[in-house]
């Protein structure tokens, strides 16, 4: 049976215009591999929204990054102060991967 290693699964939901900046911050935290997933709508403390590609200002993208506990912690530390001001959602959970090195 293939052995798996534990890593952190980090998910950040952010407005589309903010994604390049968040990717940059991830890089600063040592996270260079990620996947972007589309969303179609939602609701939160700042009201409802539905995907709007017109200006892109109110469409949100989910950034998924699987990484080591250290990098995850560094990323969270950098992002934490921005969560409230930038209406971000940050999730962190446990995940298992096969090729451990690939997700450091």
């Amino acid at each position, binding site marked *: 049976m293939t052995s798996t290693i534990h890593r952190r699964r980090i998910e950040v939901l952010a*407005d589309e*215009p*903010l994604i*390049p*900046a*968040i990717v*940059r*911050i991830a890089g600063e935290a040592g996270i260079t591999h990620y996947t972007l997933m589309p969303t179609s709508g939602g609701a939160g403390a*700042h*009201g*409802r929204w*539905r*995907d*709007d*590609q*017109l*200006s*892109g*200002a*109110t*469409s949100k993208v989910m950034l998924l990054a699987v990484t080591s506990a250290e990098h995850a912690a560094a990323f969270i530390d950098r992002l934490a*102060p*921005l969560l409230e*001001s*930038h*209406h971000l959602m940050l999730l962190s959970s446990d995940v298992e991967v096969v090729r451990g090195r690939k997700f450091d």
Partner: protein
Amino acid sequence: MALDALLQPVVLFFLLGALAALVRSDLAIPEAVAKGISLYLMMCIGLRGGGEVAETGFTHDMLLAGGAGLALSFLLPLPAFWLLRTAGRLDRTNAAAVAAHYGSVSVVTFATGFEILRQTGMAPAGYMVAVLALMETPAIITGLLLARAGGGDSLAPRGGLLHETFLNGSVILLLGSFLIGMIDGKEGLVSIAPVFDVPFRGMLCIFLLDMGLIAARRLLDRRALSLRTVLIAIALPLANGTLGVVVGMELGLNAGTSAAMGILAGSASYIAVPAVMRLALPAADPGLYLGMSLAVTFPFNLTLGISYYGWLAAHLYPLLRS
């Protein structure tokens, strides 16, 4: 003119969309299609304007109009900011973000106005498309200065915000199409006219149907909108539009071109500016600035504003010329 304008298909489809959203129908245009049409409209407008300038060549009027447009875009946010701070009771950041929207312009409002003016024999000069492009971004700079925001924000892009501002997709596409129109001239554009000229009005109908849906849905979720902000979202286009028309007149532009200047000054951006503001002033509430520009000002201009600017230009013209 007002009623005729209201009964044109373009406006009726906007009202249909708004109605559908208000009765909470599930009618929806796929976002990808709406985005595609909005890009298409910019290409049409750019090509048309460029093609006309290729014929007329650069004129004195053109320079005047361009300068006036730049000045309006830079300066209009100032009184708007003051009004939003005082009467609107908005904090500095939100007031600055909203003010930037009203200094900038709405491509679709311009396009619709252009069509309506042409119908009533007041076709504006083609170079107003260039003025449109010129007016999109300066207001953003004023807005950022008013908010005292710079690259300080840790999420601000490396290249600074000016890059985001001037290389915004809509600005590039509009200017690029304008240049292509100038290079190829009207003859060169004949072979693509079946796509970029003939179907323009019809495509505008589909787009405005979607705008009606978007605007009304924003209005329904008017969490961020107060009566004050709604009233300001009607007062600003009226004031700015009137100013635009008068400025055009004073510069000696013809009635149709002055009306177009009024439409530009009176319209508020909902594409280029929100995208930049979301990044530059994250603390500003998108529900507020998109609510005002998209859900109030845009419908107002489409239904009444355009007709008013046209009427004003038509009636001021003889007075000022005599």
